[in-house]
């Protein structure tokens, strides 16, 4: 078994999908958490693009959160059974990247009036639009009571479940009008290894 280290902030953020993968796979790793106040630190020099998260596998380094999560998913057999399924998973995961892009501006806005308007637009329009497409994709996969791609748990399902934790920063119940997605989130969070990880992970704001 390789030696794994994940290096990120003491936050869920762009590191949490990797942590969920380790948890579900039951694979031990060193969960290195850097406090924001002490960044940049000695790790910055080894970060390929100067940023975390970083994955170290037997001393070899990988950056970029999606590349890291995809690599772990492939190693742990949670990446889909063929190239097409892998691509469909990538498609679902990348769509959350788009949601996060949409979320940045309202999230970072400091002027209260502007923020209120931007949040309203995100929560009322752009988020439901994207979630609607995802709800359809889930529905088209055998009715939507299983997984979002294929017939077993993949990192796309973990990505959906993980998204609730950051979307809650914008509205209390992001999947309220998307019953199939909400059902998937529930199913994922009830997986024993996921439930155990969520119960024991550090509580962080993001």
């Amino acid at each position, binding site marked *: 078994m390789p030696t794994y280290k994940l290096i990120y902030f003491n936050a869920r953020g762009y590191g949490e999908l990797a942590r969920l993968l380790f948890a579900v796979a039951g694979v031990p790793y060193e969960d290195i958490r850097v406090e924001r106040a002490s960044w940049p630190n000695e790790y910055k020099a080894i970060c*390929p693009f100067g940023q975390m998260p970083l994955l170290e596998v037997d001393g070899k380094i*990988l950056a*970029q959160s999606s*590349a890291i999560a995809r690599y772990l998913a*492939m190693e742990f057999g949670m990446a889909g059974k063929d190239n097409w399924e892998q691509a*469909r998973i*990538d*498609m679902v995961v990348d769509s959350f990247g788009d949601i996060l*892009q949409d979320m940045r501006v309202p999230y970072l806005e400091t002027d209260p009036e502007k923020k209120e308007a931007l949040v309203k637009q995100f929560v009322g329009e752009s988020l439901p639009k994207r979630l609607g497409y995802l709800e*359809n994709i889930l529905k088209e996969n055998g009715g939507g009571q299983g997984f979002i791609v294929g017939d077993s748990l993949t990192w796309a399902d973990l990505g959906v479940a993980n998204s609730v934790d950051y979307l809650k920063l914008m509205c209390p119940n992001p999947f309220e009008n998307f019953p199939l997605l909400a059902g998937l989130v529930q199913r994922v969070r009830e997986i024993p290894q996921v439930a155990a990880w969520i119960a024991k992970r550090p509580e962080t704001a993001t």
Partner: protein
Amino acid sequence: MPNYQLVYFNGRGRAELCRLIFHAAGVPFEDIRLDHTKGEWPGEWKAKCPFGQLPVLVVDGKMLAQSKAAARYLAREFNLAGKTSWDQARADMFIDEFDDISTELYKISHEKDEAKKAELREKFNADTLPRHLGYLENLLKENNGGNGYFVGDSLTWAGLGIANVYDLLGGTDAPFAKFPLLLALAKRVRENPKVAEYLKTRAQTSF
């Protein structure tokens, strides 16, 4: 051989990496370019697109959205993704970095306030871009001195990606002035016979 269609607008944009992969691999595909002024978009296509957006890749009638997912699918099909799972992950890493660069450029091009736009462009040219290219130059150098490829010892979609970034940045050597290894790689890829043939004949577009 599967039937491939790539559907996008008439521009390089988010479809060009897929086009480069098809051409580098010598695999034929239908290069569909929709003209929104003729009602071809939204037209019939929008309702069929998984996220209502382009580009989409259609493989024997099955649809795949998200430009990187589509490009990675093709790269894997055509053995341009990297020889080992580690190499594939490293290639993915480079592709994500190129995407970070193009996202910054899209933010600038979508900025409506002219003054803000100029300010963003200035910051990008003076700071953001050299920082990104510097990291890429170092990483390239770490791979056997930097006179080969980003990953392993043969062309992958990461190499096609930097050739695409070259166009994204204006299609001149100027942005790469301080990054000789990167520039040499971009040119090497653009001179690959199948790529060069495509670059000679492809439509000149504004984006």
